[in-house]
């Protein structure tokens, strides 16, 4: 396989277990498989505590996985330490949710943007400065702001700075952890458009961590839905929103409010009962079974046997992209 055909990133059976305060094992991520093709935007969605951010942090080397494999362009990176990551770091960069805490308040914007180049020993000071100016322009900020400090910018502008910093080293893959969740609607739209434009221009690959499914639909090609540490469904975006297969995905989509009173008035909403179970004491079998509205149709198998993420039969479209679901109903 040539390097162009190989997926950019392949994670297999990735797990992350934390030790809880009471000594129990918290299974934050419990066997996740993900493949990121070159140039695609994959969304990883799910509710608080489903393990999406922990997965993202493992993929960029911020958390060592408990077990599993991560191949970055064919190179195993799962057990690299910070020094091992250094020569690869320029290929994978991260944008964080909170534009307030992820920028050093004591550095000027110019210095924040040039720092990755300094760390990697790239360029002369003047070249780094020019790169910082170019990056500001690229993300829609006035290059004359280069000597200002983060607190002088609004939330949306700070997120632009965070994106610019991630682009300094010309990465292949951007891991974006809820990059627009903290922003107001009108500003959020600006940043979404910026991310779409940057992806087109540089052929970037995105792993987009989000809980807002409407934002995902706007920006991503493919989607992986997580529940309690596992991926329960993967599908191309346009198919998933039309025809969700996993009962959890269906409930999730039906819970999202739509800003249209005519539609809201007619919607049949699936309201799930109860809370997400604790990842330190996950239910047996399918982790979703205690809340699943469709469990009756399968019965005890959901309680005793954990469903694997399996490829679904292609309905009349043999060329369609593969989609997978982890539910006994679909097998």
């Amino acid at each position, binding site marked *: 396989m040539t390097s162009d055909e190989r997926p950019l990133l392949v994670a297999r059976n990735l797990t992350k277990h934390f030790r809880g305060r009471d000594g129990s094992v918290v299974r934050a991520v419990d066997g996740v498989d993900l493949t990121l093709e070159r140039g695609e935007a994959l969304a990883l969605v799910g*509710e*608080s505590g489903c393990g999406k951010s922990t997965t993202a942090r493992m993929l960029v080397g911020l958390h060592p996985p408990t077990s599993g494999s991560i191949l970055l362009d064919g190179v195993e990176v799962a057990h690299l330490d910070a020094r091992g990551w250094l020569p690869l770091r320029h290929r994978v960069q991260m944008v964080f949710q909170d534009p307030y805490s992820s920028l050093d308040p004591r550095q000027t914007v110019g210095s924040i943007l040039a720092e990755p180049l300094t760390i990697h020993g790239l360029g002369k000071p003047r070249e780094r400065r020019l790169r910082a100016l170019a990056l500001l322009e690229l993300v829609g900020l006035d290059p004359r702001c280069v000597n200002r400090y983060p607190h002088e910018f*609004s*939330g*949306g*502008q700070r997120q632009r700075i965070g994106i610019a910093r991630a682009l300094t080293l010309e990465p292949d893959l951007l891991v974006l952890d809820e990059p627009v969740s903290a922003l*107001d*609607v*009108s*500003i*959020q*739209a*600006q940043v*979404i*458009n910026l991310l*779409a434009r940057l992806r087109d221009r540089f052929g970037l690959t995105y792993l987009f961590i989000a*809980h*807002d*499914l*409407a*934002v995902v*639909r*706007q920006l991503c090609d493919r989607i992986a839905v997580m529940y309690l540490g596992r991926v329960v469904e993967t599908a191309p975006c*346009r198919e998933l*929103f039309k025809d969700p297969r996993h009962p959890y995905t269906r*409930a*999730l*989509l*039906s*819970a*999202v*409010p*739509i*800003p*249209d*009173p*005519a*539609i*809201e*008035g007619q*919607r049949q*909403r699936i*309201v*799930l*009962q109860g*809370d*997400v179970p604790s990842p330190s004491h996950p239910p047996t079998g399918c982790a979703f079974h205690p809340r699943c509205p469709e469990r009756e149709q399968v019965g005890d198998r959901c309680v005793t046997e954990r469903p694997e993420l399996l490829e679904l039969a292609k309905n009349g479209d043999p060329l369609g992209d593969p989609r997978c679901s982890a539910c006994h109903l679909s097998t």
Partner: protein
Amino acid sequence: MSLLEVRDLRVRFETPLGTLRAVDGISFDLEEGETLGLVGESGSGKSVSILAIMGLVPTPPGVVEAGAIRFRGQELTALAPSRLRALRGKDLAMIFQDPMTCLNPLLTIGLQLSEVLEVHLGLSRREGLKCAAAALGEVGIPEPEGSLACYPHEFSGGMRQRVMIAMALLCRPAVLFADEPTTALDVTIQAQILELLVNLQRDHGTAIVLVTHDLGVVAGRADRVQVMYAGRLVESAPTTPLFETPLHPYTRGLLASVPRLDREPESTLASIDGQPPDLLAPPGGCAFAPRCSLAVEACREATPELESPMDGRLVACPRHAETPVENPAEGAAS
């Protein structure tokens, strides 16, 4: 007479950097049993408005000035603090985005709920706990009796939100102010809580002021929606007309910039250029003018007042009729 009448409410904060006008003269009425959506982005003054109505703005640094805040005809601004306290929690109740801001982490849930009934209705501790258990059952807390002895940290975020709602509704208030009640929750839990609020409102006829930045949340639940920008009301309308034919350029821009789950996305999302104004140094005239495609010189000179171009609707933009009201999804992309 409306249940609640607010006239020319102004709230400013004296800060070391100057005077910040958080709410700059808003007026509205709330009818019995109505759900009023109050929407706007961060800093638009929506939360501060309801805090001011409840008498909960700290002074100093805040300064509240109001032409009138009348509840059932009674002027609240002239009320002695003790009289206002008697109303608050009984007739006027409030729930917050973060339940931990209103629940005491050191007291059991039962004690906190019972206290409300003891103070406002003169119940004994025993009667109070009994009513508290019933209230917890009503909001869907499993094993309500057993939960009375629990502390807030023993509940999940969604369950704490239920406890707070139970507490707010204990005395069957006439008005419930809900300040971003589901913003911190996941969507499946949000759906549970909103359904709960709708059911409780139907059973008890409570009027709700629903403060939110999420247009989807108001679309499904509000009877009427008021849009705020930079401390002022810019538009007010019954919910369906507001979403179908938004009049104010800001409302139109806002609706167009929300990504939609139920539609194939356009290649570019419409967005509103620029930033909301700095409230310490607001622009002259209409605060939205610097971001508005319809703005002309006159917009930057005088602040537009609310006018009523048609029945039941108010808009603070003299130029709202200048362009045809188009479907927001087809709004111009920047």
